[in-house]
């Protein structure tokens, strides 16, 4: 056999009978796959699935680093497996596990319903005092105004930042880096008037103030979104907002009572 590399892949079968103590445990299964210098970890997982073991389950789709499906722990670090090359570790074995800080559904698949709720909670959409008419054309936005939030709009929801975040590890309710960055992205958007509507969630105990600014989220972000910066900026905004509420309470009332966009559904 030509040159090969070893993958130690986390397996977890929720259908399997529980052990003597009533719980189910995961285990590592080692697979030997051909080594190809151009292969990424995802290629190796797909090789296993197609050729060695059809029962392995993992998520993937675009394999070009933009759909966000294939985030996993690769030798302990949260990575997009479509952009983690075997040659980074070869000939050492590569350990592949599901993203930490999430419940495991099966094998390498994690439960992301919690994230979806957190994303929805920050109201990640434009909220306008006045809805523009289509016939009046686009809302104007200067290149500088676009640049103010553009970086935070690049999040692909891969969840690597949650796996890296120490706070997300022990505070299940922490809104977390990606969702906070997206909330902040809309707060920064010159077309948006939703600051007051997002205030309760963004500035709550479970949100920005939980962050201890360790910055791991920005370290692992494959798209360089820098959620840590978003959260620190949001803390400054929240502080200004708080002071404003003390010295200019009526100004605060004005923002809080301002009519908001077409929230017909009453998303939570």
């Amino acid at each position, binding site marked *: 056999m030509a040159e090969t590399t070893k993958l130690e892949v986390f397996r977890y079968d929720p259908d399997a009978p529980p052990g003597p103590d009533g719980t189910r445990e995961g285990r590592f299964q080692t697979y030997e796959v051909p080594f190809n210098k151009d292969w990424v970890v995802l290629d190796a997982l797909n090789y296993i699935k197609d*050729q060695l073991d059809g*029962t392995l389950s993992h998520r993937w789709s675009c*394999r070009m680093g933009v759909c966000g499906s294939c985030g996993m722990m690769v030798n302990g670090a949260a990575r997009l497996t479509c952009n983690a090359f075997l040659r980074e570790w070869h000939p050492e074995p590569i350990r592949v596990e599901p993203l930490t800080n999430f419940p495991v559904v099966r094998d390498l698949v994690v439960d992301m319903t919690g994230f979806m709720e957190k994303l929805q909670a920050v109201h990640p959409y434009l909220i306008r005092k006045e809805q523009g008419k289509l016939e009046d054309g686009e809302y104007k936005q200067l290149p500088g105004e676009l640049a103010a939030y553009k970086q935070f709009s690049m999040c692909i929801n891969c969840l690597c930042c949650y796996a890296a975040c120490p706070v997300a590890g022990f505070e299940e309710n922490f809104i977390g880096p990606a969702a906070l960055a*997206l909330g902040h992205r809309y707060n920064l958007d010159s077309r948006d008037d939703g600051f007051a509507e997002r205030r309760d969630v963004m500035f709550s105990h479970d949100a920005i103030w939980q962050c201890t600014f360790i910055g791991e989220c920005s370290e692992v972000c494959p798209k360089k979104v820098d959620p840590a910066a978003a959260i620190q900026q949001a803390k400054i905004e929240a502080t200004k907002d708080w002071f404003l509420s003390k010295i200019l309470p009526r100004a605060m009332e004005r923002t809080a009572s301002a009519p908001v966009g077409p929230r017909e559904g009453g998303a939570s």
Partner: protein
Amino acid sequence: MPTHDVILVGGGGAGLRAGIAVAEEHPELSVAVVSKIYPMRSHTVSAEGGAAAVVQPNDTLEDHAYDTISGGDWLADQDAVWAFVNEAPKEMIQLEHYGCPWSREPSGRVATRPFGGMKIERTWFAADKTGFHMLHALFQHSLRYADVVRYDEFFVTDLIVHDGRCWGVIAIEIPTGELHVITGKSVILCTGGAGRIFPFTTNAAVKTGDGMALAYRAGVPLKDMEFVQYHPTGLPGTGILITEASRGEGGIMVNKHGRRYLQDYDLGNAIPVDDERHPQKRTMELGPRDRLSQAFVHELEKGNTTDSEYGPIVHLDVRHLGEAKIDKKIPFVRELCRNYVGIDPVHELIPVRPVVHYLMGGVDTDIDAKTELEGLFAAGECACVSINGANRLGSNSLTELLVFGARAGRNAAKLAKKTKTIPHDELKEQIDATKGRVTSLRQSNGTERIADIRVALQKTMEESAGIYRDEASLQTTVGVIAELKERFEKVKVADKTKIFNTELTAALELGYLLDSAEALAHSALARKESRGSHQRTDHPQRDDDKYLKHSLAYKVEGGAPRIEYKDVVITDWPAGARTYGVQSGLKRDKPAEATAAATPAPSASSDKTES
């Protein structure tokens, strides 16, 4: 069982736009988004270059319509194209109002860029992650509507059809393995294309022709399936797309001698890159994708391509754009090149080769996104309206998602509102039969490996249904597909468990691929002419007398599909010659003669800009 007014199968651009249209215009209706992946993972996310809509003061709807129709080699329905170009600008502004971060001019207005086959800059863009930003803007906007109910990671196995009408879907909830019946008064298929029929494609893993096959099995014809778009600039090995925007911004294509070879294929003159007229619209690198991909094959035959470990390649050169412009306009191109081929396009040539990118064909719909089956609609790549004819122009597909997604949503809502009740009792028989079929697939003791069948399918499709085709190879392929379908009857699903069983879904996807491929290969075999992306070496001419028609492939149980034809709708431009380069432009009233042949010879100075 859950029931809704409108059910969307697929949560990409077309599906989300349809869902939002229903939620905004008919808030009393409930919408289900049934998607096998979380919506923001959908393949719309990978689109890079942009979305076309007339916005510049010196542009006209007529020009956009003409570019689209001539680009499609006159196979597009012209009434549909008019609807498309008319509604495109409004849809793009709508998306801006939803928050899409379009790139901007210094004035604060939305910026546009040139694209292949288009006469003028009319492509709206968000750097070179346009699809990503469009999809996330749509998805995030959809989160404000509580009446849009998501069924994330639900894999649709069947349409529920009773008495000539569609009443919903049956789906596996992937995380639990449970089968669910979701009934509705209208169903919209928006599952994208089927690029995974081929081995070398830009398409994501999820693009397995699900909606096409579901419709085909329900007796709805697949239209113009023989038209497969090869994008001229895919990265060798992975097939990852390098956007046409790289050429729209001024990138050039060169062969192994450094020659801008497109000038040898009736695509106009090679204007030097430092000439202010470069890049010239509808010319050279901004010619249409079918012609550029065909030119590659000729270069290969002439020995002008470079060998690489992943097959023959040519090069895309963007170095003259400079680092600042590359980082501002096409940063993702730089990121992809660095990550996946280990080169920096600021300093090096990008190796590229044609790659399967898009299916012009799909579920036959009318201009209102309706199919032949009452209650069933389709939109996006999985549908064929047709605005793309025999070759889609770059940046029309993202716009198509919006225009026809919204149309599908509105028309599905209209039907749902006038439908009083769903005959639940009468659907039971079909529902029970489907449940039995899925359960037995999981419990079967088949021997044929999924990957073996899939690889054999992809191999035969590439050999026969690629850029150039002929009778003999297509005959072989239809035979191979029939054999593979027999083998599929004995497919092996080793995983007998229920929770997140992706081997089961892979088997079901393979079934969809086989059906989509069957329609494609038979349609290609039947069309004995060359038009747009369908090039038959044994029938090299376009034959308007016989084939200025849409093909319709109807599934026949246990045999080859029945191929029928229907007329193309022509309202303004009779079929004429497709010309690019110097002679290209708007020829509204008089069908042009073959002016392409008169394109001047390449200028001697054109090569001096190559390094």
